[in-house]
Each structure stands twice: as structure tokens, then as C-alpha cells.
């Protein structure tokens, strides 16, 4: 189990709060931002807002990027009395913004909640996740000769997007939900260039938007074929493109959103699925 928490440029009050509740099982590493080398075995990242930190938002963005779409909570501690909106931090990629003035019990519980390990998919979730994994790899292999490996899955109840460009498709008819794929710019550019058999510098924003939409369309299209005759069968609609990062597209208490993380060489991308099976649908094998 990963038990490393990184506190970046945090002052003693914040460190004390952390030490107070973390106990022995978890190691707290206090670092300055420029000394961060590796996030690989990190369970949580703690940052602190401060007058002397004009780059905090930029740092959050960099850290979120370095998390490679994995579910590593980034927690920002606020110490200033007057607080503006926490929105900019969340948009930049923070998971939670906590004030040192918040009740200690609340701070402890929220941090504890984020430290609890992720769950693995339920059996019924595996049924559809497996198909999406297989087809995501197959589509990119087919159209871009790209070898892609599936890294991990976790669940969220917010449809959040952290990346540069996303293709999004609504799933309707029968099963309902949403399917999205999110890339950072360089990987998107590489993939579209390979799809079109041309050089990366010939790929402009328009082609990337268009191509990412077409990729999500193909993943949805091939996957729905796997679900013929099952409650997970759906129809696809025309894709949308979301540009930029930090979007919160919706919230679903009832249906968890599965986030699948993939790797292509040293780059990562994510596929997000929220799929509610057709209540009247035929069950597997009829």
C-alpha cells in the first residue's frame, strides 16, 4: 500500500495538523515544490496557500498533470483569514480546499476519507468496463498503430475533466450515460498525426478537435456492438469537444463514473464512463 503523503512548501501549522492525525502508518514528506521528483507512490499531495505564492495555481496544474489522470487527491490548505472563492483551485486540479479555521474534526475526516483506498469495480461494472478497455486499445491500435496499455480504474461521482482536449459522447436508447476521452495536447497531436499518416506539425487545433471526437465515436461504436442483446446496449449521438482543463461536467449521486487510465509510451490519457443499464433490457444470455 502506498503510504506517502507529500506536503509541499507547507508551514508548521499545517504540518502539525497533518502529524496530529496521520499516526505511524503514513509517512509525511515535507518538500519544496522544486524538489519533487516522483509522484508514483504518493497517496496525497498537500499544498498551502500563502501571500508569497503567486504560482500556486500553476503548481496545482503541474501536479495534476504529473498525476497522469490517477486519483491522487491534491489538498490545498488556506491560512488566510479572508477567503475568496475556492473555485480557481478546484479548476486548476485541486481535489479539496480546506481552511485551517475549519473544525479539526472536519479536516481530519475529510483527509481520512481521501486516504481510504480506491475500490475495485463491482462484477456488473466489470462487465462493461472490460469492453471499453478492450475497444479503446483496439481502436487506437487500428487507426494509429499505437500500443496502449490499461493502467487502472477508479470511481468518482463527479464528471471532472483535467486535460487539454476531450471528446464526449452521450449514450442514449437502452442503456444511458456518457462516454468521454481526455488527452493532453502532445499525445492527441501524435495520435491524430498517425491516424492521418502525416507529420505532427501539420496537425492543427481543428484537426485535433475533430480527430478526438472521431476517436470517442469509434470507441462508443465498437463497444455498443459488444453489448447487443444486453442491458448495456446503447446508441451513440454526435460527439462534442471540450477544450481546456478543470471542467466539472456534472454530478451523479446514483451512478458512479468510472475513470479508466491508459498509457501510451510515457504519456497517459483517460476514458470516463457513466453507464446506467437499461432497466427493461434483456439480461446476458437472455
Amino acid at each position: 500500500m502506498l503510504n506517502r503523503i507529500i506536503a509541499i512548501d507547507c508551514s508548521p501549522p499545517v504540518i502539525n495538523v497533518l502529524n496530529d492525525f496521520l499516526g505511524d502508518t503514513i509517512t509525511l514528506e515535507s518538500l519544496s515544490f522544486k524538489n519533487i521528483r516522483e509522484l508514483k507512490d504518493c497517496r496525497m499531495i498537500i499544498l498551502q496557500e500563502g501571500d508569497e505564492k503567486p504560482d500556486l495555481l500553476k503548481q496545482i496544474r503541474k501536479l495534476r498533470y504529473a498525476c497522469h489522470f490517477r486519483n491522487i487527491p491534491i489538498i490545498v490548505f488556506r491560512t488566510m483569514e479572508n477567503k475568496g472563492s475556492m473555485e480557481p483551485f478546484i479548476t486548476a486540479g485541486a481535489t479539496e480546499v480546506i481552511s485551517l479555521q475549519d473544525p479539526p474534526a472536519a479536516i481530519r475526516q475529510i483527509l481520512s476519507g481521501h486516504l481510504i483506498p480506491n475500490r475495485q469495480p463491482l462484477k456488473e461494472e466489470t462487465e462493461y468496463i472490460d469492453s471499453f478497455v478492450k475497444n479503446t486499445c483496439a481502436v487506437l491500435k487500428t487507426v494509429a498503430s499505437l500500443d496502449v496499455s490499461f493502467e487502472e480504474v477508479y470511481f468518482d461521482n463527479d464528471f471532472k475533466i483535467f486535460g487539454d482536449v476531450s471528446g464526449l459522447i452521450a449514450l442514449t436508447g437502452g442503456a444511458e450515460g456518457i462516454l468521454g476521452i481526455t488527452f493532453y495536447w502532445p499525445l492527441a497531436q501524435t495520435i491524430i498525426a498517425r491516424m492521418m499518416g502525416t507529420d505532427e506539425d501539420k496537425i492543427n487545433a481543428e484537426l485535433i478537435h475533430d480527430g478526438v471526437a472521431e476517436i470517442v465515436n469509434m470507441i462508443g461504436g465498437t463497444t455498443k456492438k459488444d453489448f447487443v442483446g444486453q442491458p448495456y446496449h446503447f446508441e451513440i449521438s454526435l460527439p462534442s469537444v471540450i477544450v481546456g482543463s478543470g471542467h466539472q461536467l456534472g454530478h451523479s449521486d446514483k451512478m458512479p463514473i468510472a475513470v479508466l487510465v491508459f498509457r501510451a509510451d510515457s504519456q497517459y490519457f483517460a476514458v470516463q464512463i457513466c453507464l446506467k443499464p437499461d432497466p427493461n433490457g434483456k439480461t446476458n444470455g437472455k
Partner: protein
Amino acid sequence: MKVIIADDSKVMRNIIQNAMRPMGTEIIQAGSGQEVFEQLEIHGGKVGAIFMDWNMPGMTGLECLKLLKKNEKYKDIPVLMISTESEDDKVSIAREAGAKGYLTKPFTNEELIKFINSSI
């Protein structure tokens, strides 16, 4: 010979166009069903084949196919579907509507070339 490639994705149209380049055919691109009819009008219906996507904004590829087959001037132009709609029943719907061929996305370049060669 002139060929229309109808797909709402510019990337996809270019991929198909690239595959056909060695054949020396003149390529006309269309981004929707409506544009297919506009291009047919411009070129006086003298088109050897239409490669047709299914999911497009406005008039879908299937609707366009059905209208073409009803149209006296254009009903003999072979329509070849290239689409992510890949279930068997979708393929038969398109076949019944008069599609001469059907290629499901995604495809490799070799599969595309093979499909093009076998259909025109």
C-alpha cells in the same frame, strides 16, 4: 472518375482521400447529407461512387442514402457506407436501404484500401 466522400469528420475524410490518391480519382468532400446533394447538383450527378458516414449532423447518412435511392437522377450511384455503426442489424438496415458496401470504423489503412478496391 469523381467520388464523393461524405463524413462529418475532416480527419476521416482526409484519411479516405489519402487512401484513394494513388487511384487518380477526383475527390469531392462533403460534411453532411445536405452537402452530398449540393455537390451532386454542382457536378451534374456525374459521380462514380459515394462513401457515406452514418452519424452526421442534420441529415444522417442513412437518410441521405434513402433519399438518393428515391431520386431518379442519383439512384444508380453506388453508395458505400463507412461508419461506426457496426451491429449486424445496422448493417442490414443500410444494405436494405440500398448500400452497396459497408465498412465499419475503425479500420486499418489496408482494410480501407481493400474495401475501396473491391467496391469501385
